[in-house]
């Protein structure tokens, strides 16, 4: 009998071990509970959520990203953060400056870009040199004319600061701090920054009304260019590039700023001469907050921008074909230009720029 029980025990052991591969896969052991999924606000007319499958947004991940975004520890001398050049009240641009000044006092060569609705963006920077936001966020940290820090230094310093290990643990399950997690946390925070509560949005939702001037401005914004004196309504032709609810087509275009280019823009990435002088088409949301304008901040007011499109377009090989037909410009009269500015100001989203979720957590 004892022999039988020994045999049975052997068989049972074999069964339990032989079938190990078929057992449910256990989640990896973590030091922290799973982070809390973040629920996006539903905005009518906006595209579906477009975050990354390998980096789902969580309350804890966004909170870590917010801390990193505003923490100067990520710069070489601990004096500048991402938020230094991306200020909320300016639509997350740099305080009215054409070019930002880095920690060494060196000045950049392109205007700080606004930050919102970037989960629906394709290619980053004015010249599109970053394919993804996750790639982009680590580049200013390491750029010698910006934050000028080495990632190993930043990681070492973060590891020494109280609280960060626990924040990484809460966001990612373990307290490991590395560049991929820094990038993912920043990606989560920036992806959570959605702007869709402007007066324009409220008008579309039947919750507000345009003034007469704003309404005329919208009509001009969405109308085709017409030759002055042709009898057709004046058109700004704006909507071809600043299209969809995002107010950008996510393309690169030469909008006639120059005939000879000191900054070749997208060509520096593609090495295609036909991309010379092309830059990212920016969203026009919050445009009244993000002066100065263009990739080099050459225009200080919206009126100057419209004057450019109205009468200052410079021809070149790569000038956007849509603008070729306009000759030197749109030919809008002063009232039409003022109406267009009035409409553009309805794209300001004060609820977004004042949202406490996006403010500096280190400022009382």
């Amino acid at each position, binding site marked *: 009998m004892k022999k039988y029980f020994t045999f049975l025990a052997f068989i049972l052991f074999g069964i339990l071990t032989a079938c190990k591969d078929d057992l449910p896969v256990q989640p990896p052991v973590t030091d922290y509970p799973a982070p809390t999924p973040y629920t996006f606000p539903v905005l009518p007319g906006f595209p579906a959520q477009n975050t990354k499958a390998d980096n789902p947004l969580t309350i804890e991940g966004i909170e870590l990203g917010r801390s990193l975004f505003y923490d100067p520890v990520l710069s070489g001398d601990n004096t500048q953060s991402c938020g230094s050049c991306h200020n909320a009240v300016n639509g997350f641009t740099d305080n009215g400056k054409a070019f930002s000044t880095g920690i060494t006092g060196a000045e950049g060569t392109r205007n700080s870009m606004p930050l919102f609705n970037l989960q*629906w963006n394709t290619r980053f920077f004015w010249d599109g040199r970053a394919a993804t936001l996750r790639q982009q966020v680590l580049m200013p940290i390491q750029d010698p004319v910006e934050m000028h820090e080495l990632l190993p230094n930043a990681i070492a310093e973060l590891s020494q600061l109280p609280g960060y290990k626990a924040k990484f643990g809460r966001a990612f399950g373990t307290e490991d701090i590395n560049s991929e997690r820094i990038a993912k946390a920043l990606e989560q925070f920036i992806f959570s920054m959605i702007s869709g509560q402007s007066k324009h949005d409220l008008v579309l939702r039947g919750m507000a009304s345009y003034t007469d001037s704003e309404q005329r401005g919208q009509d001009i914004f969405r109308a085709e260019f017409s030759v002055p004196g042709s009898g057709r309504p004046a058109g700004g032709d704006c909507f071809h590039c600043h299209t969809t609810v995002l107010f950008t087509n996510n393309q690169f275009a030469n909008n006639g700023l120059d005939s000879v280019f000191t900054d070749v823009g997208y060509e520096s990435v593609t090495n295609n001469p036909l991309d010379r002088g092309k830059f990212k088409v920016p969203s026009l949301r919050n445009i009244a907050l993000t002066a100065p304008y263009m990739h080099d901040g050459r225009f200080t007011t919206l009126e100057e921008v419209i004057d450019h499109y109205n009468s200052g377009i410079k021809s070149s090989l790569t000038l956007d074909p849509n603008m070729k037909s306009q000759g030197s410009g749109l030919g809008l009269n002063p009232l039409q230009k003022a109406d267009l500015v009035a409409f553009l100001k309805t794209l300001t989203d004060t609820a977004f720029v004042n949202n406490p979720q996006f403010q500096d957590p280190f400022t009382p």
Partner: protein
Amino acid sequence: MKKLLFFVLLLGLQACKDPEVTNPGPVPVAGTTSLNLQLEHYFGNEAIVLNQFTYNTGQNTLGFSNIQYFISGVQLKKADGSWISVPGYAQFTAQSISSGTTQFTEVPKGLYEGIRFNIGVDSVANHTDPSIWPNGHPLSIMEGGPMHWSWNSGYIFIKVEGQYEIPGNPMGGFAYHIGRDDLLLEVKEEGIVLNLQENPASVIFRMDLKKYFNDPNTFTVSPETSFTHSTVNDTVADQLFQNMHSMMTLVAVNP
């Protein structure tokens, strides 16, 4: 004791059974197969190479930087003369290639004698809020946004963009954006044998951009005619749309 041994062995066999498959992946719909629609982009007898400014229309020397369009409303003709619809939309972007292929699944198996489809978007979808489409769909804001006029007539059905030579001057750009409900182009080919009784098949069409500028309207690109956004009574759009009717030809049906 023998019963106990048998029970234990049975338990072992049951325990090692394959786990239930809960995510088997895409399952072909019974009774359907796939249709591959291939589009070639030519200038006369020459496959178009983008950004190569050597194509002579007879009126201009020019090159293409972008050829982009929607395909919708695919239908196949049955032997009894009726047409069945193949669901789906596709967007072709000839920004880096001289031809493209899209696959329409859910094609009822059968032997067909004709095919027709539209270059453009049907009027219902054309006036539907693009935010209803999931990301990745050809008509979604993410995919179709650059091909959508936010407030006007809906989608741009076809874009043909490039540069043309102006003697004695820098090259000029052209941008022809055709898109309005009444400018939906139907492409139709009958009298073919399209065997989709069991396996997928391919149909290859050629888009000839030389005809786009010549047949039947001799079209000259100039500063005055270098663009259209298909406004009503726009003669540029009207002439090019007439020419579009001649630019599509059937190349082959495989097998």
